[in-house]
């Protein structure tokens, strides 16, 4: 059982880092704290918006991923990299980008007014879901695209030899793959939307759109009711955990057998109808993602000259934290993925299922008696960022590890390939694209994160997103837009380097 040894260690670390702070908050709280009635309506709204966001993200991601999987075109690589962009943007940057398109004075409403049509409002449940789809559609697309690319090209070749139609290919090859991949993707999007705070509030239009995370914030900062905050965090955890259980129950592993990993050519899809359909989906998705990004770019360019030097310093801090966080995250995710058990995924999921505010507070309660929390600003930020990115990295790595073991495990056993040698000669080479992608996600997510917890803030080590918020807080919206653009560029750069490095010269 040497294979799951590191997995147990990783699971222990993650569980201790998440449950430890939660317990610390409980112990620090006074007894008798109750969850309020208004909190339960927040729980209902949170589940509703997270479920809708997850369903819609995945429903749209499936045709987009299929189109990307079976078409080769110029700019495809760039498009796939850009797919990572919305996911890693700080919330306020993304929201302002979306508003430039869908807002009251945005492109869509300007066009509608020009056509003499009534305006559409982004504020309300529809806006919350729209923003969450903007954030998560790309991620879901990448995860499902990876599933498509996991079907060996030999199977499609065989299907073409047998003269299978598009419908038959979908039934025998694509449906089993989706059964294996989609539940996990749904779960991870659902879990991330559970802890939504700023998006839900900013676009939700009012107190109807109160989420559990806001209730936690309120309990902590306005009522200083630690017990209530911790109980609400447990509710979040239970919700995400239930989603995970449902996902494993629903997921059916696909057994395609091994292939040679060649580029897929899809004979059955070479009809004009299929081409037009795919072009339509790719165009729609690209437009939906790229137009808001373009607006962020345009707004940011004019602000670049006003960006103060502190922002560039902060950029250095953010990149450093992102690299440390990436290394931590990938090591943890790989160890957990090698376990190939459901519990490992549940452990990984805890990172986004628990309120960052509660983790931060708990860590603070634990650390503060021993040393100055500010001295731990860098490591704690990197560590918490790694935990937050863990479920995504895990979602990307786990299916490929499972597939590699299923396809080559017995051969490796027969060759007595164990421990480090197995990792070095079997797993890592076959995992290269997934490792690159997950490292890219982890790095970029860490770049965009708001320095996690104010409690550990070190005035001299402000991160880039924090400096951006500070600029906004000082009315300097243009300079903030410039900082947002720098952040977007750096995040994309970090993402691109890892992701591209993983893909190597493979035309993925």
């Amino acid at each position: 059982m040497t294979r799951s040894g590191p997995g147990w260690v990783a699971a222990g670390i993650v569980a201790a880092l998440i449950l430890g702070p939660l317990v610390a908050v409980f112990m620090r709280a006074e007894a008798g704290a109750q969850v309020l009635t208004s909190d339960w309506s927040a729980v209902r709204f949170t589940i509703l918006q997270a479920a809708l966001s997850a369903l819609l993200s995945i429903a749209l991601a499936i045709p987009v991923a299929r189109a990307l999987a079976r078409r080769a075109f110029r700019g495809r690589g760039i498009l796939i990299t850009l797919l990572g962009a919305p996911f890693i943007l700080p919330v306020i940057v993304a929201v302002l980008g979306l508003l430039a398109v869908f807002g009251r004075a945005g492109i869509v409403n300007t066009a509608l007014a020009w056509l003499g049509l009534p305006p559409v409002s982004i504020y309300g449940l529809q806006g919350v879901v729209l923003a969450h789809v903007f954030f998560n559609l790309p991620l879901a697309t990448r995860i499902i695209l990876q599933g498509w690319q996991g079907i060996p090209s030999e199977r499609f070749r065989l299907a073409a030899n047998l003269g299978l139609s598009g419908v038959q290919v979908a039934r025998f090859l694509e449906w089993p793959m989706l059964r294996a991949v989609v539940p996990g993707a749904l779960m991870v999007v659902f879990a991330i939307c559970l802890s939504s705070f700023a998006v839900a509030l900013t676009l939700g239009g009012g107190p109807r759109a109160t989420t559990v995370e806001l209730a936690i914030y309120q309990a902590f900062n306005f009522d200083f009711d630690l017990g209530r905050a911790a109980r609400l965090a447990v509710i979040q955890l239970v919700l995400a955990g239930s989603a995970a259980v449902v996902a494993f129950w629903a997921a059916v592993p696909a057994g395609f057998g091994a292939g040679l990993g060649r580029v897929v050519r899809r004979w059955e899809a070479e009809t004009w109808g299929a081409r037009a359909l795919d072009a339509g989906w790719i165009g729609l998705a690209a437009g939906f993602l790229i137009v808001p990004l373009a607006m962020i770019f345009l707004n940011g360019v004019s602000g670049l000259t006003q960006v103060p030097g502190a922002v560039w310093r902060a950029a250095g801090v953010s990149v450093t934290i992102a690299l440390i966080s990436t290394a931590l995250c990938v090591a943890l995710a790989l160890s957990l993925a090698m376990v190939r058990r459901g519990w490992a995924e549940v452990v990984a999921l805890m990172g986004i299922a628990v309120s960052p505010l509660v983790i931060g507070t708990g860590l603070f309660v634990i650390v503060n008696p021993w040393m100055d929390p500010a001295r731990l600003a860098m490591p704690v930020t990197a560590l918490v960022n790694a935990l937050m990115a863990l479920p995504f990295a895990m979602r990307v790595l786990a299916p490929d590890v499972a597939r590699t073991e299923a396809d080559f495990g017995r051969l490796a056993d027969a060759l007595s390939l164990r421990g480090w040698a197995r990792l070095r000669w079997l797993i890592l080479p076959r995992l290269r694209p997934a490792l690159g992608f997950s490292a890219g996600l982890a790095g970029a997510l860490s770049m965009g994160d708001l320095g996690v917890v104010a409690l550990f803030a070190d005035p001299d080590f402000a991160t880039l997103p924090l400096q951006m918020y500070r600029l906004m807080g000082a009315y300097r919206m243009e300079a903030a837009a410039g900082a947002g653009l720098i952040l977007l560029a750096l995040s994309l750069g970090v993402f691109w380097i890892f992701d591209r490095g993983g893909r190597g010269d493979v035309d993925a």
Partner: protein
Amino acid sequence: MKRLFIAAGVLLATQATAETPVLTVYTYDSFVADWGPGPAVEAAFEEVCDCDLQFVAAGDGASLLSRLRLEGARSKADVVLGLDTNLTAAARETGLFAPHGIEAELDVPRPEAWRDELFLPYDWGYFAFVHDREKLPQPPETLEELANSDVSIVIQDPRSSTPGLGLLLWVKAVHGDGAEAIWEGLSDNIVTVTPGWSEAYGLFGEGEADMVLSYTTSPAYHRVAEEDDSKAAAIFPQHYMQIEVAGKLAASAQPELADQFLSFMVSDAFQSIIPTTNWMYPVAMPEDGLPDGFDAPLAEDKALLFAPDEVPAQREAALAEWQRALSK
């Protein structure tokens, strides 16, 4: 190499602390930004105190208090700067603060409501709805008029933001039992409710609403820093105030330095920094007057403020009304 620098820095820092006393001031995050008051205040105070002034930033005003409650009497803080009068009742309850003992006459309206032996104001402002003169030449003139108009507004959530709480108390102070009806009237004006001031002001900047809840001093920023005279604050019959205060910790290891800092805080050296870094009114008029671009504060008869000990009860009632009215 970098590690070497850090190690050297730590070494130097430890040597320095052995010689000069350190005054630790907890404050909110935007105070310590390079463009905030923090750096100038630090330089000015260190010139006169023969000490090392260290700011520790902890989120916003509300998280500042939470942090203090978490740390209790073990806190390293000597001074806490950045609470407002809506938080001071809760801050007093912690029992962590000591009287500041300063009797200065401050240029802040409604002293009978804010005077407090534990907490001393360092800046203040009036909440107001800010608009663009060209896009909205004739703004509403009362809360009621606003509620009955079709002018769109962005506000902040009273559960996560101090301006949001300010508006809640403003409506309550003006309309009392009629506050819920005003909120019902306002509900169709409200484009959205943001978690903090920055998001709301950003949305207003993007043209998402005609007006945004901010301060009467906001237009001064646009005039002074951007030479843009198009923004104005709509003047209503009365405006709720925000008064930002500082207090000294009873467990401070540097009580004399803390006292010295609080006296310095209401002196000209500190007060003249405030207007163009924190964009609020100073509590003592600077020797050279307010910077160009700043209007004189509204007269005292326009100022509304609940005394700190009234706030918790008012807040709870008003929050319930707010949630009911806006959830319909």
